[in-house]
């Protein structure tokens, strides 16, 4: 399994590619409702591949990056352990099971999505899923309104341009991102 007879080992053992693949495979199995806590638990508490500080550092980076955060997190963890190929192993381990699951779900939806019972359940669940994201947005927005500054205006402009006006994301970001960054810079001075 372990592919190096490591020289006078650094205290936390460095996981092999297979370790990385199966670590993330296992995380997706347990990851009902968010995989972040499980990732932290396995890396920091169980296997001790990282210190709490290192974990927070990687997390901060992934908040900075665009794209699916948790997938980015996986990639960065893998690369910190075993370079680019380690990143690939972790990435694949993380995505393979959800991909299969979703493909099956898509197959079932295509075949049975129009059956009366399924229709009824989804007619109830879809509004609830929308409600959950309203709550998420509200929780994230609340701290923005607690301080004086440009953030609330930028928040409202973004929600309006994308949610109500339905303008293309690329153009909206091309205008709003530099504006907001400039405002943030100027506000700090």
């Amino acid at each position: 399994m372990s592919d190096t007879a490591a020289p006078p080992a650094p205290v936390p053992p460095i996981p092999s590619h297979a370790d990385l693949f199966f670590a993330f495979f296992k995380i997706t199995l347990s990851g009902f409702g968010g995989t972040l806590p499980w990732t932290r638990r396995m890396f920091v508490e169980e296997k001790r591949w990282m210190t709490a500080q290192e974990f927070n550092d990687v997390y901060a980076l992934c908040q900075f990056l665009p794209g699916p955060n948790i997938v980015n997190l996986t990639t960065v963890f893998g690369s910190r352990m075993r370079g680019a190929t380690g990143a690939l192993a972790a990435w694949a381990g993380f995505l393979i099971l959800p991909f299969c699951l979703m493909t099956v779900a898509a197959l079932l939806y295509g075949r049975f999505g129009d059956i009366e019972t399924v229709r009824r359940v989804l007619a109830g669940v879809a509004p609830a899923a929308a409600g959950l994201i309203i709550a998420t947005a509200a929780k994230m927005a609340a701290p923005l309104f607690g301080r004086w500054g440009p953030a609330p205006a930028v928040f409202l402009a973004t929600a309006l341009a994308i949610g109500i006006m339905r303008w293309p994301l690329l153009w909206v970001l091309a205008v709003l991102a530099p504006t907001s960054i400039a405002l943030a810079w100027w506000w700090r001075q």
Partner: protein
Amino acid sequence: MKADSDVLLTLAVQFAIMSLLALGGANAVVPEMHRLTVEARGWMDDRQFADMFAISQVAPGPNVMIVTLIGFHVAGLAGALVATLAMCGPTAVLALYLGRTWDRFKHAPWRVAVQAGLVPISVGLVGASAIVLTRAADHNWIAAVITAATAAFAYWTKWNPLWLIGMAALVGLAGLV
């Protein structure tokens, strides 16, 4: 065949661009996915889009997997694979690169300003997702009540969201929506 490869190319390009624009995570680009699949291309209707979002939230695994559902719906297994890779590939490469240089700029003033400027935008995008999904899912007042009640309970209580989803499923099953 021609049409098929055109569709796959569209999926690849559009989702790759979206992945790089997804400030703050996959939920930020839900409105853009809706714009592409429902409004621009007519690949599905509002109801189907709302269904797929709901399934991706309820199923275990990251929320980004809604792209797998969309890809499969549009172009079968190949579509699912292309959409997933396009959404999860490019930003992973970026993460790999920035992961190596991060230590050099993590305390730089410009980095702090960029992040401070992008946070309200990424939150605004989640707000936009909430608007778009509510419009897509709620076609009568009972659905609107479910949305409002779920939002209130999720905001003010610590209940596991799966309970809320389960109750909404029962209301749906009873034929009330």
